[in-house]
């Protein structure tokens, strides 16, 4: 397994902020595992490059950990809405030919893919 960000492993960063110096969580990236989770078939060289870049970006992004947020609720969405309902009524559908024609491979009115099992 390739770890492109080995120089970032097991490192405890310190970030000076207006709230004082706060110990941050170490950025520990198993870049090959992340690429597999993301379904990206990257070469070893690409993993190395992206791993290093990700380490740098995360080092910056982890500054968010320096803000005290005890008791602050997360915002996942800017609107104070919980759900959007509509009447349970059948509506118009796209004609299958309109999108099957745009697919890389189809058969018998369905999307066709290579074998599923290895």
């Amino acid at each position, binding site marked *: 397994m390739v770890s492109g960000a080995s120089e970032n492993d097991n490192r405890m960063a310190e970030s000076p902020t*207006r709230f004082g110096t706060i110990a941050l*969580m170490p950025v520990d*990236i198993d*870049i090959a595992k*992340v*690429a*597999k*989770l*993301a*379904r*990206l*078939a*990257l070469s070893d060289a*690409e993993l190395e490059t*992206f791993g290093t*870049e*990700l380490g*740098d*970006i*995360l080092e*910056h*992004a*982890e*500054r*968010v*950990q*320096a*803000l005290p*947020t005890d008791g*602050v*609720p*997360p*915002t*996942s*969405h*800017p*609107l104070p*809405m919980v759900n*959007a309902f*509509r009447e349970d009524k059948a509506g118009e559908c*796209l*004609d299958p030919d*309109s*999108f099957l024609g*745009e*697919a*890389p*491979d189809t058969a018998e009115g369905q*999307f066709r*893919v*290579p*074998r*599923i*099992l*290895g």
Partner: protein
Amino acid sequence: MADLADLTLTEAGAGLRAGEFTSRDLLEAVTKRASATEAHLHAYLTLDHEGAERAAEAADESFAKGEDIGPVQGIPIALKDNMCTLGVETTASSKILDGWKPPYDATAVARLKEAGAVITGKTNLDEFAMGSSTENSAYGATRNPWNTDRVPGGSSGGSAAVAAVGSAFGSFGSDTGGSIRQPAALTGVVGMKPTYGIVSRYGLIAFASSLDQIGPLSRSVEDSVLLLETVSGFDPRDATSINAPVPNFGGSLDTGVKGMRIGVVTEFMGEGIDPQIISATRAMADRLQDAGAEVVEISLPSTEYALSAYYLIAPAECSSNLARFDGVRYGYRAEVEGTTEDMMARSRAEGFGPEVIRRILLGTYALSAGYYDAFYGQAQRVRTLVRNEFSAAYEQVDALVSPTTPTTAFEMGEKTADPISMYYSDLCTIPSNLAGDPAISVPIGLDDADLPIGFQVMAPALGEEVMYRVAAEVERLADFTARAFLATSEVMSP
């Protein structure tokens, strides 16, 4: 007669109604402008000549019959290539969608067509709207019409360049962290991000769903209002669409700022911002004060963390949204011996460009077990703090103002090797996306390299009328009449 392509949308609409020219004349003028500028700019990815001509003819027939269905009837308008257009190639500037023709129109596109607009074509962007320079396009970069060695900003760089040179009378982009306002600032046009939920996202190829909004780019504040009005309003196809009457956006354009309280954001007037931009912003704030507003300093300390929070939230959402591009239902499929999963992983690695891959990896990591709370969860709590600070500020002031960008247009290639320096381009624009509030960039002058400077006006959610009221006064005070070099007569009539 002056070149029709130099008119604002409002002027073009008035001329159509006065019978001075036809929609076909307008289309011919912008098509000519596109032929003169595209070789230098590469702002358009697709020009839909046939569709545009049909729409212009239909508009002229309507006018001839005395039908008038609104301000964009017969007006040529361009669309960012991440907005789905029925039967017209939509790529989001990605190889993974090369050649894809959507089977439906985005709601915003459908509303423009229903309102009689003439869609000229699709404009270049950073792949999947990820970037701040329109250099991350699988089809080549767009250049800045003020200086072609410079970037036009991004990700809506094509839409901004088109509005700046007059190869359409206005355009639409999408803004996730500043992707409308930043390129508008860098190309000297007006660019506006609406309140989240005002414009349907149905048919906008998703980047970060809790932040994305479609909005207009134009050559005047009044044009911006007309374009926004055309696409706004509830859409049952977007679960985050606001189900309420659309507020009056342009009702106070002529009111002026007398009696208003306007806050200058302290954090965006110091370190990290070009001194020329700070002094231009300060001078405009002083003029707003002279025009009768009470201008005060407002500190928003959590904005210091907004950029970091954004670069966790946006990639997290993008890694989820872009999972749909897997070589099965549309777009690029890699030829591989192996299983479906092998095909998907290879198609994605070959089909996505480096910035998209970088953000998918970042988002996947930030959402993965063991890191979720420290990164994504914490970023969402910081988002709450940013929103709370904005809400508190709007108890003291009617609107906030700041520079739109830390610098004017930078050199092509200057930031491509350093993702973090590119991310800083969105420093002043990201907080409005996190808060879900409306914000607009208005050009107020040129720096000493003759590059445009943008001035940002922010308002609370659904405060578009207040935002436009201030923006209109800024536009009057700035009296910005300079034109991009590529739109000047020396280029137009060689």
